[in-house]
Each structure stands twice: as C-alpha cells, then as structure tokens.
C-alpha cells in the first residue's frame, strides 16, 4: 500500500482493510527512506499525523463517515500556515516570525474530508522561482533523476508526489508554480480559476495572481482533493462566493461534444522537441487538429512579468530595506529591480490584462478547451543557467514559464497532465474557460484512460 493512490487508501481505510495509522506509518517510512535523496520536506509533522490518524480510526470504528479522503496522507508547500510551525515561505527571514496558530483553510478542509497532514514542503524563496532550488534549504530534487530540477516554485510538492512519498500535495501558482513542477516531475497538477480556492492563511506573493491548488498522481485523486477544498471563504478577499461545483462525479462524462483546439502562435514557439512531442501525443489521442491563435500572448506574458515584479517588490519592500543580506541573492536583486518600475507602466499592464481577458473570453465562445505546452523543455540539470534553443542561447530561469504565464495572467483554470516520455516526463496544459475546471479534468481523465498521459513511477529512486 505504500504507493497507493488517495482513492485506494481512502477506500481501504473506510472499509477497515487498512487503518489510517498504517497508511500514515507507510507514508512516514517512505519519507524517511527517500527524502534524503529528494529533499522535498522541510518539516515532517509525524506526531500530529499519528494523532489525527488515531482520531480517524476511532471515528470509523464508531461507525462515523470520515469523508472521501479517509486516512490519505498529504503535505503542503511551506507557505501554508501549519499550526505550531513557522511559515517560512522558502525564506530565512520568515523563520523569525511567530509560529502559526491555525492551519490554512485548505488544510482544514482536506482534514475535514479525512486526509492527514504529514508535513511541509521545500519551495523557491518567497515563490519567486521556476527551478525548485533554494539556497537556505538546498534544492528539491527530481524523482526521475535527482541531478535535475523539480521546477518551482512548488518544487517540494512536485518532488514528494512525483516520488510517491504522498499521493496528494498542495502548492501555489502565481505564474506557473504548480504547472512547471507538475511538468518536470511527471504528475498531475490543477491550477484552478483565480478565486476558486481560498488562500486564507498562506503567505502571499502577488495578490492579484496568486492561486493555490493540488498535485496528484491520478486525475481522480486530483479531483477528490479539489472537491474537498472548494467553497467560499470570507478569510480570503479574492475567494469566490460560488458554491462548490464538484468535479469528481462528472469525470467520466463523455468528452465527444467538446470543442478542443491547440493554442497557436506563441504556444508553438520556443519549444524543445520533447515539448512538441508531448503536445502532439495529446492532440493525437484527442483527434485534435484545429489550431487557434491566442492574441497577444507574448505581451500577456510580459504584462504578467511586470505586475509580478512590482507587486512582489511592494510586498517585500521593508524586508529589502532591513534584511537584504538574508534574502537569496538572485531573488533580492530581482525584487529590488521590481521596485524600480515606473508606476504608469504597471497601470498599463493592468489595463492590458483587462483587454486580454476580453479577447480570451470571446475566443472561448467557440472553443471549450485549449491545449498548450506546460514547459518548453524537460527538467534541466540543477544549477543549469542556460540552454540552446533554435540556435540561440537562452537563460533557463526566466524562460521556463513562458507558456504558463499568459494563462494564469487572467486566472484561467488549467490541468497540467504528464506525458511519460523517456527518460524524462513533460507536461501539457489543458486550459478551460473561467470556472470550468470540470472540463479540463474530464479531458485529463479521458486522456489518462486512453493511456496517453500518466504519472510514471519515480525512476530516480
């Protein structure tokens, strides 16, 4: 049962074939054995997890319904508040903050559904990262080749699920930080519509672009976690007032009537052969040949870049004044430069965002789902600075997220699906209209059943 899916664990625990405590002990043993390779965890909450597991087992013994994730171990990027831990957000500076007094909303909701938190996960400092490297905690490592990046900034989340240490993890995505690690680590990731899932009691980065979401090794697990976390939350000003719209019950619905197209232009450029192959496999499995142009996607990426760097600088301005030497140097320098963008240019980026959103909403009148690459390449080597693409040497860090940024810029829901190429997997984005996570999840489920996408066993362990 050590690498069982969340739904298998929940079924076994609910039917008392497995105790929640056994499920947690198996996860803790796997973490102890493999995390020295992966460096995905920064905190293992074993005592809390065992206590919660005993509660779940007692409730089941008493005949109570403990929820659809009974006994399922999960872990969270260390920017989520975990009661009793300091929310470090990948930084050194935040370790001086008081310990959190209450769990993040999404942790509370997963545990209300029977899941059990086993720890907090490594991440790029303050989430301003696409690599999964961290100067304070060391890099999280790719489960298929530990010499390679996990992608970031939710690097530990990608590594822990890709390495099957836990079946479900949570992360955040401002410009691609769920979709990039999903791609590099060969797992499924959901970046929901902006505002769908509460961000209450998580450390922010860019308020107008921050999303939280789940990672899993199957679409059903992804949907189960997503469904358990939905619903309004007055503690997050951006959280929707829409009622939960469960996706798990509709996963197997026929997708034959959906209008699916490949994203053209910007999304078909700057790609290594592996990314082209991955998109082609998904398109072939779905029988899709139609290509639609996404207007001004390159400019959308640029506007997201500008808003990110300025809002990030604003968030950290006082820390940059008082403790500049305690930042990771590359991130400090990026944030300082972000403080220097003239305000009218930021305002124009926000106006462009409004215009771009209107264009995409118009496009979605004739398309139900867009297919696009998640990353231009498979996971680069840890520490790799540049790669050569189309004969041009390019920097790795700023170019990993070029295909994710124009999508999160306007908060569209995306499921990143893993194409298990050899030797390294790579992801593809399934992009739906706002509030239609169900469409992306249904198509992901169909692709999984066809065998076109799957989370490969960790090859590096």
């Amino acid at each position, binding site marked *: 049962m050590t690498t069982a899916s969340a739904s298998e664990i929940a079924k076994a625990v609910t039917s008392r074939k497995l105790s929640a405590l056994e499920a947690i002990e198996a996860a803790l043993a796997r973490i102890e054995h493999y995390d020295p390779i992966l460096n995905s965890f920064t905190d293992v909450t074993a005592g809390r997890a065992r206590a919660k597991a005993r509660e779940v087992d007692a409730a089941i013994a008493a005949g109570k319904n403990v929820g659809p994730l009974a006994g399922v171990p999960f872990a969270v990027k260390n920017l989520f508040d975990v009661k009793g831990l300091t929310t470090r957000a990948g930084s050194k500076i935040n370790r001086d903050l008081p310990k959190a007094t209450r769990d993040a909303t999404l942790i509370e909701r997963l545990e209300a559904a029977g899941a059990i938190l086993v720890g907090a996960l490594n991440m790029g400092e303050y989430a301003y990262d696409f690599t999964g490297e961290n100067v304070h905690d060391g890099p999280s490592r790719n489960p298929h080749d530990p010499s390679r990046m996990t992608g970031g900034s939710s690097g530990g989340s990608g590594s822990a699920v890709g390495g099957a240490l836990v079946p479900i993890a949570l992360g955040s995505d401002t410009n691609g930080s769920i979709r990039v690690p999903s791609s590099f680590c060969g797992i499924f990731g959901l970046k929901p519509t902006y505002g769908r899932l509460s961000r209450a009691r998580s450390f922010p980065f860019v308020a107008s672009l921050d999303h939280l979401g789940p990672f899993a090794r199957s679409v059903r697990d992804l949907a189960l976690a997503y469904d358990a976390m939905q619903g309004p939350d007055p503690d997050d000003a951006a959280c929707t007032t829409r009622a939960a719209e469960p996706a798990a019950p509709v996963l197997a619905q026929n997708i034959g009537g959906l209008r699916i197209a490949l994203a053209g232009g910007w999304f078909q450029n700057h790609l290594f052969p592996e990314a082209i192959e991955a998109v082609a496999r998904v398109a072939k499995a779905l029988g899709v040949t139609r290509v639609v142009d996404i207007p001004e996607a390159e400019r959308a990426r640029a506007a997201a870049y500008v808003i990110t760097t300025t809002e990030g600088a604003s968030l950290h301005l006082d820390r*940059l004044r008082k403790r*500049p030497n305690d930042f990771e140097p590359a991130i400090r320098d990026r944030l*300082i430069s972000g403080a220097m963008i003239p305000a009218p*240019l*930021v305002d124009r980026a926000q*106006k462009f965002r409004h*215009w771009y*959103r209107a264009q995409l909403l118009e496009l979605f009148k004739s398309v139900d789902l867009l297919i696009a690459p998640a990353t231009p390449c498979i996971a680069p080597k840890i520490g790799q600075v540049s790669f050569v693409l189309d004969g041009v040497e390019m920097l790795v860090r700023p170019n990993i997220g070029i295909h994710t940024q124009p999508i999160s810029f306007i908060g569209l829901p995306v499921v990143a699906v893993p194409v298990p190429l050899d030797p390294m997997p790579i992801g593809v984005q399934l992009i739906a209209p706002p509030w239609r996570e169900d469409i992306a999840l249904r198509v992901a489920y169909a692709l999984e059943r066809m065998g076109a996408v799957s989370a490969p066993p960790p090859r590096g362990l």
Partner: protein
Amino acid sequence: MSADMIDDYIASVGAALGLPIEDAWKGAIRANLEVSLRMARLVDEFPLPDETEPASVFSA
C-alpha cells in the same frame, strides 16, 4: 537608456525608496531591470482605448 543612465536611475530610486544597494548587487539589479523595462515597453507600446479599465477594479 545607457548603462550609466540605468545605474544613476537605480541609485536615485533606491535612495527615494530607502533601499540599501551594495555595489556588488548593481550588475544583477541592472540586468533584471533591463529585462523588466523591455517587458514593460512591450506592454506600453500596445494601444488601448482611453476608457479601458484596469483589471484591478475597486468595488466599495
């Protein structure tokens, strides 16, 4: 802007914001700022109607 002008700009804005900037960081800050300004220019040169609302609309 020339490299010297950007360095002067960084020093001036840094002083206005009260940001301590050590000499050793200046090259990386300049490189980052040049990329950000290039991105911002791409947005700036796109014509938008005067009536365009920003994405961040305040509601009372």
